[in-house]
């Protein structure tokens, strides 16, 4: 009897846990289905497509590694788009990290109306990128734009042709990227507000000044947040598309021909899906490698200990 009762209890418990497990899978099933069908499936398919010549309309033709060989050995636009994207990333990411951090420090002050200022800095990031692009086309207009007007009024110099100039188009888009600095700022701000007060009090007791507090407390405590923004910044900057697509169409003379724009043109305007898939996977490995490097390097500078 005892054994049977215990057995029934165990069986009931197993059934209950089993049912909860099934329930969990059922709840996750729509997402899993969507992921497998709409993300993982196409991703795997595109791996295969990278080895085919495929134009949407006619059956794919096996070309082996020819797409990858052409891409690295013969394709000037691949290298040009990679160069443009790399320059953009190398310049814009540090600028966004530093500026976002500085603004977050300012927004972390206890002054009247600080919530208004925080909102003002954050609002640009929630504007649609299309609207932002058109707004900046006006701001950057060489003749009637705000920037050249300010340059002439304040410094007495004539501004460049910005988007129409081969030399200035990319810098213009980098400047424009700072418009979205409110995104990292908010994350920094949350991090700043999470730093325990007692650390600063301890520094006060030790006679530390503001610089010491910033260097020995704020920066180390914020390092995971800086790391997060760095990783996201690298991933996002290598996928820039809208601004060049709308504002410059990659020009003038391919000066703003970002990698994603080339990928889009190749796949969806020229219908070279096999080659586009190869481009996509090269981009995937570039981003993955940079992210891995970031994680490996983070061990040297990101503070992850508990307090």
């Amino acid at each position: 009897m005892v054994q049977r009762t215990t057995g029934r209890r165990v069986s009931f418990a197993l059934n209950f846990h089993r049912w909860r497990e099934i329930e969990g899978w059922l709840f996750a099933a729509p997402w899993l289905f969507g992921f497998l069908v709409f993300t993982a499936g196409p991703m795997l398919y595109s791996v295969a497509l990278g080895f085919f010549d495929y134009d949407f309309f006619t059956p794919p033709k096996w070309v082996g590694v020819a797409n990858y060989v052409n891409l690295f050995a013969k394709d000037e636009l691949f290298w040009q788009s990679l160069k443009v994207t790399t320059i953009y990333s190398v310049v814009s990411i540090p600028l966004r990290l530093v500026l976002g951090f500085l603004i977050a420090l300012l927004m972390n002050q206890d002054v009247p109306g600080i919530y208004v200022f925080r909102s003002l800095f954050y609002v640009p990031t929630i504007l649609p990128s299309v609207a932002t692009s058109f707004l900046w086309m006006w701001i950057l207009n060489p003749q009637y734009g705000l920037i050249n007007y300010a340059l002439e009024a304040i410094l007495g110099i004539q501004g460049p042709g910005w988007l129409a100039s081969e030399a200035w188009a990319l810098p213009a888009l980098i400047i424009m990227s700072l418009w979205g600095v409110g995104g990292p700022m908010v994350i920094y701000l949350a991090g700043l507000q999470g730093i325990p007060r007692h650390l600063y009090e301890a520094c006060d007791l030790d006679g530390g000044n503001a610089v010491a507090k910033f260097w020995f407390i704020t920066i180390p405590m914020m390092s995971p947040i800086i790391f997060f923004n760095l990783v996201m910044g690298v991933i996002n900057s290598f996928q820039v598309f809208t601004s060049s697509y709308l504002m410059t169409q990659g020009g003038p003379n391919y000066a703003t021909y970002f990698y994603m724009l080339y990928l889009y043109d190749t796949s969806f305007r020229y219908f070279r899906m096999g080659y586009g898939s190869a481009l996509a996977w090269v981009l995937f490995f570039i981003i993955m490698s940079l992210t891995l490097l970031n994680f490996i390097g983070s061990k040297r500078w990101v503070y992850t200990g508990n307090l």
Partner: protein
Amino acid sequence: MNTAIVPSESTLRKRPTQPQRGRALEVMPSERYDDKIFTSAAAGTIADIFHANSEMVTTFAVKGILTEITPLLDADPDVKKDDWFDWTWVRAMYQDKIWAMTQKGNTTVTYYNKDLFDQAGVAYPAGKWTQEEFVETAHKLTDPEEDQFGTWTYNWHLAVWANQGDIISPDGQKCLLAEPAAYDAIQWVADLALKENVAPKAEQSEVFGSLNPFASGKVATYIGGEDVLGGFIESIDSFEWGAAMIPTGKETVGEGTSTMFPMSKSTKVLDSAWEFLKFLSGDIRAYEAMAKHGKLGIPPLKKAYDELFLGTEPRPDVKEVLAEMALYNRVWMLNVTAGAEAKTTVDQGLSLVWTGELSAKDACEELCPKLDEVLANQPR
């Protein structure tokens, strides 16, 4: 299933139903129309007939997605190719075969602001006028203090052809921009803004965005087609305006584009689809519906041209010029199946010419090898 797909601004959606049953008309938003066509073509579910621009027709023809129209036309006793103007077939052809029926055509004319001409005491352009007369007129009508320009960005295709040059060889195989006739003409266009100062520079023209600059009243002459005529009639009420021929260089040329309907190769109702195509392109009732909604264009069908276009209201004076210019139409990207890639290559290559950072000669010599490579690799 017998279907036709058209973009949302098409007259077909407003047209009284064609007198046959069992026909489905699918209307797509214009901005996603190409996506719909290409994805349905890729999926093998494309409609029996669909609205297409000429680049699409060439691209689809080379991919084997379209039914060739030539034998249908030849075998049908109800229609004769002579019922349509010759230019009807030019953009519908690839490798000497017809792949679509044309519903409307277009050309280019010089629209001019009569009030600005009157204020400057300049006579209106009439008949064939030369490029020299055009520049001289533009100078007289340019007033920098009033932000007023003698002309707008000139269509450089027209300038090249007028100078007896060409952009791509008629067989679609070779870039011809590195020839003096071509790059001299392109430099002439760039210099209208850079040296002559009678047209806006690139950054000045940006200000108008998608607005038509001619409607602002600040531009004295404007090269445009029939597609802007309806908008001008509707929106311009602050000044008088007219239309003249495109200025003549070594020869007179206009640029022609067409709106066409090809037939899918996978259609299972060939006869009905052909009947519908004939209706769209060869039946006066289709043109009447288009005219009713202000979407007539320049009719490719001679009967529609005579009865509904030439001499009809509104603006018969402008239509007369459009009709005359259509006789001089040239087209580019003929027999080019990598149209989008070729266009990007040309646009990028010439982009520094318009800002004066590169001479047209240097730009063309640099871009032609790139364009030749695109043309050499295009699908055939």
